[in-house]
């Protein structure tokens, strides 16, 4: 079978099988996992330049729908399917809700998005992914909220798709073809002649991509949706599905490469604008994240904040910017996946998503704790874990253009990410263990395997980034740019510097060994239970002090509220909600036309006729 077709057909068949057998949960999960694995096997058969086209007798045009493989699509396919395998493997054992057949449909759509050679297949796949994920989000932990979340997502997503649809037809009417390549090259050719027109088309497309990735000002749906989606699906939603927007941007961004357009600080102005959208997203996400008490919402904000980083990086369409963006996309997939999988593991054990109700779980779930720790260290960009290299490259890309304000925004976001990550870390795993969770157990064997794998991957790709940078370099050269120099798997080569990650790793390890030796040699310590704590002389038991009362994690950054209040007053969310409400209000008013009174209907009909006739008379 043609591998390209197999990537689409196998998930669909798997989906049908899973739908039929969904009554038997374990079978359904197994089918989901196996389908992902099988799809992955077929990935080895594809090569750059593979093409597949079929003709569709539709629209009265010679409509060619095609699949094609570029280095970028290979990279995306490997990344997303591999993550899907990890997630579905994890879901084999856990009780988290997830509808396998919809996930597999999403997989088919996802593969199709990355492989589509023309805008019609792209749109088709995009919409398919849209509705299958919408249906998936129904049926989260909390019923009413998950419905709201799914609807919010649906509204934004469908709005975005329609905007893209209009863009597609505006474009194809001029070029007479739907092929992505020829449309993009057409846009390149008219960019300097009709810049506003191109901008109009691009903004129609970019709106869809921004919505999907949750870029400011379309970020508002993200927390509602990620926060309420079924636990087994959230990692996929935030790690994989947010990357479709990135892929979309990468389709259109090369068009400013060869064109003569006004530049700002060496950046073509459309890129400059996108860069600002990215930077603002990064900041907005981080700032809103550290105000959150709901752990899924917190990482939802975190997720789109990182997407802001990625967008800012790829907007600087230089070799280092592109490399940094793609590298961060990969790292984000990895650490965000690790974080979300550990988070849903915790949620499934404690049965709540409110962080202020958790705490001290490191004693009960040590492996989960360690995975989470490494995950947030990577998210904070700390060497030698995955996440450091890409963040550092993003900063280099920005500094090299002298984009001081955007850089500072991003750096602030990076620091703020440290804040919210520490908060989640503290509130979930550190601090006092409530007696409610005395019986909490570590995740099952399958969960342990998944977590160890993610832990290993975070370290492995941290110290040997070359395994990711190599394919990224081939993507960079496929865009006609000169890739960054490579010098071995352990090096991250940047603009200013090259970093040998292995050497850092070794130095840190030696320092750790020394630290532990010192720790073991000097005076001995006494192990005490966590309740034995400094309480200013009060004996906790006398005052009925329970561990959860002795845990400070609610409203952790309350003093910041005051400083950020002016910024938090701007409520984009409120705008969308208010818009929705007023539409509903107008709907209520319009409904009153149909009063149920037949006389009114008669008057309406006659009135309509009279207006026609008068209008006819006047023009006549």
């Amino acid at each position, binding site marked *: 079978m043609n591998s390209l077709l197999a990537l689409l057909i196998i998930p669909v068949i798997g989906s049908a099988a899973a739908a039929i057998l969904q009554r038997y949960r374990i079978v359904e999960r197994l089918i989901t996992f196996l389908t992902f694995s099988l799809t992955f096997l077929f990935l080895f058969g594809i090569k750059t330049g593979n093409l597949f086209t079929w003709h569709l007798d539709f629209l009265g045009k010679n409509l060619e729908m095609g699949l094609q493989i570029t280095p970028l699509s290979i990279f995306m396919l490997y990344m997303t399917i591999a993550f899907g395998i990890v997630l579905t493997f994890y879901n084999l054992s856990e009780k988290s809700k997830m509808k396998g057949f919809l996930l597999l449909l999403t997989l088919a759509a996802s593969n199709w998005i990355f492989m589509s050679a023309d805008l019609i297949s792209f749109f088709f796949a995009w919409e398919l992914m849209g509705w299958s994920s919408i249906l998936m989000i129904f049926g989260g932990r909390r019923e009413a909220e998950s419905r709201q979340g799914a609807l919010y997502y649906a509204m934004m997503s469908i709005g975005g798709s329609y905007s893209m649809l209009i863009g597609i037809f505006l474009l194809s009417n001029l070029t007479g073809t739907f092929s992505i390549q020829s449309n993009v090259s057409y846009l390149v050719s008219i960019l300097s002649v009709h810049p506003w027109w191109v901008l109009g088309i691009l903004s129609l497309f970019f709106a869809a991509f921004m919505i999907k990735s949750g870029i400011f000002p379309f970020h508002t749906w993200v927390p509602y949706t990620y926060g309420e989606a079924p636990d087994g699906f959230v990692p996929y939603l935030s790690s994989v599905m947010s990357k479709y927007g990135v892929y979309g941007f990468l389709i259109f961004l090369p068009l400013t490469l060869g064109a003569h357009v006004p530049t700002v600080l060496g950046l073509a102005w459309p890129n400059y604008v996108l860069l600002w959208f990215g930077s603002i997203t990064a900041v907005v996400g981080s700032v809103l994240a550290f105000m959150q008490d709901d752990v899924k919402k917190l990482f939802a904000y975190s997720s789109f904040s990182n997407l802001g980083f990625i967008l800012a990086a790829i907007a600087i369409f230089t070799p280092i910017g592109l490399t940094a963006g793609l590298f961060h996309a990969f790292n984000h997939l990895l650490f965000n996946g690790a974080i979300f999988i550990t988070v849903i593991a915790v949620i499934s054990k404690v049965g709540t998503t409110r962080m202020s109700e958790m705490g001290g779980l490191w004693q009960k779930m040590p492996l989960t704790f360690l995975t989470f720790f490494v995950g947030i260290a990577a998210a904070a960009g700390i060497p030698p874990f995955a996440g450091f290299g890409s963040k550092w490259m993003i900063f280099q890309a920005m500094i090299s253009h002298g984009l001081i304000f955007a850089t500072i925004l991003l750096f602030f976001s990076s620091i703020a990410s440290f804040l919210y990550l520490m908060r989640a870390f503290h509130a979930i795993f550190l601090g006092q263990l409530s007696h409610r969770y005395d019986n909490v157990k570590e995740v099952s064997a399958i969960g342990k395997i998944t977590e160890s794998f993610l832990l290993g991957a975070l370290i492995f790709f941290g110290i040997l980034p070359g395994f990711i940078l190599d394919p990224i370099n081939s993507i960079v050269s496929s865009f006609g740019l000169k890739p960054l120099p490579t010098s071995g798997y352990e090096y991250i080569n940047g603009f200013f510097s090259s970093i040998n990650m292995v050497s850092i790793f070794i130095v840190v390890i030696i320092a750790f060994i020394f630290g532990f030796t010192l720790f073991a040699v000097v005076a001995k310590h*006494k192990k005490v239970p966590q309740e034995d704590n*400094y309480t200013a*002389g*009060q*004996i906790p038991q*006398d*005052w*009925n002090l329970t561990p959860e009362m002795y845990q400070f994690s609610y409203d952790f950054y309350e003093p910041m509220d005051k400083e950020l209040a002016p910024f938090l007053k701007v409520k984009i969310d409120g705008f969308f909600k208010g818009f929705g409400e007023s539409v509903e209000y107008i709907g209520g008013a319009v409904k009153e036309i149909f009063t149920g009174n037949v006389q009114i209907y008669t008057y309406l009909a006659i009135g309509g006729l009279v207006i026609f006739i008068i209008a006819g008379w006047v023009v006549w």
Partner: protein
Amino acid sequence: MSEWTEIVDYFRGRSMWMLHYCTGCGAIELPPTMTSRWDMERFGITPMATPRQADILLITGYLAIKTLKRVIYTYEQMQAPKWVLGFGSCTINGGIYWDSYNVIERLDKYIPVDIYIAGCMPRPEAILDAFVKLKEMVQKGEAKGYEKYVKNYDWYKANQDRVLKRTSPVLKEIEKVTKIG
């Protein structure tokens, strides 16, 4: 080995961190002791915030049974080596509260006191004198109150229980109140 212990003891004597448990009026003597007139930091003595960090427990004044309980708890939270300074007459014989029904008379029946500072109030000079004495004792390896406490724990415990028993009805009441609240 003994040389090593001597060295350690020498440094311990030079760096004593103090947790002041200010129950009574004696606390008023501490600010002058710390500030420019007498400056106790020149002996390496610094006030500390928690029992985990402290070497000296300085108890300034009378101890009601209620506070005694906290003192014992705090003392047990401190880690060896640790020393106790009883400050003022109240810790020695109850002072003016000698016949009170709920104030203890002798602190060292409940926790081992290394040095008492007599007086009502003792002046900062007296406090500094006590610190210097303690330093000398530590450096000579004589201040071993904490070891005494471990050795005679049963005796101390019995003494503590005898008086602390009296607080239980009150605390029981509180328990009820907090439960209802």
